């Protein structure tokens, strides 16, 4: 938790970026990218989420402990997804 006060101008910049990225996501959905459509959509979503976490939730200015907690949480979700999907993905390997 920090006392660093983020300026409204920065917030404005972030929200406009988020809106633009939303439009890009929708637009990209109409472009034929095969299996990459979902990747593009998730990458953009992750970028948006990162902006919200860093600036709206002040994690950029928070003590290391908060940042560690955020990283750990995301990492744990990754463990759940990755290790389970690894089972499904490797079933056809033999």
């Amino acid at each position: 938790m920090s006392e660093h006060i983020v300026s409204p101008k920065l917030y404005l910049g972030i929200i406009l970026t988020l809106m633009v990225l939303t439009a890009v996501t929708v637009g990209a959905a109409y472009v034929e990218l095969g299996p990459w459509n979902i990747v593009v959509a998730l990458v953009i979503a992750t970028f948006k989420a990162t902006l919200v976490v860093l600036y709206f939730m002040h994690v950029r200015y928070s003590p290391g402990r908060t940042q560690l907690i955020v990283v750990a949480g995301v990492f744990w979700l990754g463990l759940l997804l990755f290790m389970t999907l690894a089972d499904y993905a490797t079933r056809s390997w033999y």
Partner: protein
Amino acid sequence: MSATESRPAEQLPEKHYLNADYGIRSWLLTTDHKRIALLYLVSVTFFFLLGGVFAGLIRLHLLTPKGALLSPEVYNRMFTMHGVAMIFFFLIPSIPAVFGNFFIPLMIGAKDLAFPKINLLSWYLYMIGGALALYSFMSGGLDTGWTFYTPLSSVYSNSAVAPAVLGVFINGFSSILTGLNFLVTVHTMRAPGMTWFRLPMFVWAHYATSIIMILGTPVVATTLALAGMERLFHLGFFNPQLGGDPVLFQHLFWFYSHPAVYIMILPAMGVISEIIPTFSRKPLFGYKVMAGASLAIAIVGFLVWAHHMFVAGQSAYAALAFSFLTMLVAVPSAVKTFNWTATMYRGSISFQTPMVYAFGFLGLFLVGGLTGLFLGTLGTDIHIHDTYFVVAHFHYIMVGGAVMGYMGALHYWWPKMSGRMYSETLARFAAVVLFVGFNLTFFPQFLMGYAGMPRRYHSYPPEFQIYNVLSTAGATILAIGYILPILYLLWSLKFGPVAGRNPWPSTGLEWQTASPPPTENFEVTPVVTWEAYDFENRPDLGLDKPVIPAGPASGHD
């Protein structure tokens, strides 16, 4: 020598947390962590006894190969309710909700946990969850196994699945909030001078346990919600007929339920780490390594869940990876066992009841842990999966390990919680009875499992009868071992000698305050200047100078 022998007769403190306020509202609306701990003590004991009744019926039924007591359908409900009651409503809360709640603030020099009202909410969530499970039991129970595998639980079972699932779901939030409370408390509520590496190992153990609680429990909550939705609205997530996948349920379920077993054992390990130094009059060997091992168990414990699914149809490559990781998770547990042994080496050992339980823990946890390796090995698991070998393995850990830890904690901290001592002779006798009864109950199960007797079967081929009879005989003795403490502990409340502030004596901060403690825990916020388990530099304990000097608190023998 008993530390109470040459002490002048003590008085109970005039005002303490038990008589600070009277009436049912002062208990049901309390935010005092010590009172909440006692509320939990009563409720978990109820579920323990209930689970024990189901176990008794199972063991009685299995005396004969054809199973004369229960029909197959009812038998399925018995082992399911035994598992649900014991795991979710006894083992998982037990040590954290009773002793963690009571002692973490005392051990760190705080007035209470970080969020006392949320602590009370945790107990109410537990009670609501428990009531729902009880409602399920009284409506005839459920027959899915405590593992709720789909599609039996979500589609085909004709038993009271929904209330039980809802009860376990709600109970999960009790666990999550307790873990959250402990984590914040340890971070922000430590008294001046109580640095991270001066914390008792019990606190480290609960910190690690809390990490598991907050990261794992939400996943089983979602899983049960999905299974419940599937059952109620005929959805298809886990139903192959509708395009769903039962193995997905298993992945989601075990992602929590494997770490859950570490929720059950880590606190018990924390208790052992308190008892052994006290009754060896020696610092815990390898403090930092022990703390690290607790965290390692918590973290690596999240990486092994599919070892419950080796025969479920997962890919061989995934199975290989999970088997390898399972071998890894055994290492920190082994390290702990070595360190406890090293703590006792050249110590001044006394065999009071808590220490008898600690010894029991060491031997039984060792057997349980080693047999886990048999199960974690892919080849052997094909042979012993779903047999009594598994049942014996987890009972050695859960009962021989976790429940021994719980009983040890009860007997170690009873004087502090109640201000009274119990009969040492009776208590030691009960501990031995427990140990003997336990081994007679569960060792034959290794043998019959290895010989091929499947688990969750209501009848069996006649060649297994001898093992089953031995097992049931052991269970009777085990029951005595559990009933005796209830009797003499209750008796001690009125008639036991006054214990005094620090009867053992022990180095922990909780022993610096009165027995029973005042509501605010300490008259003055303590300032900590000593290391953990530092018997040598604590003249206030009234101990003779040790003949062989103990190592420094970090334990480099």
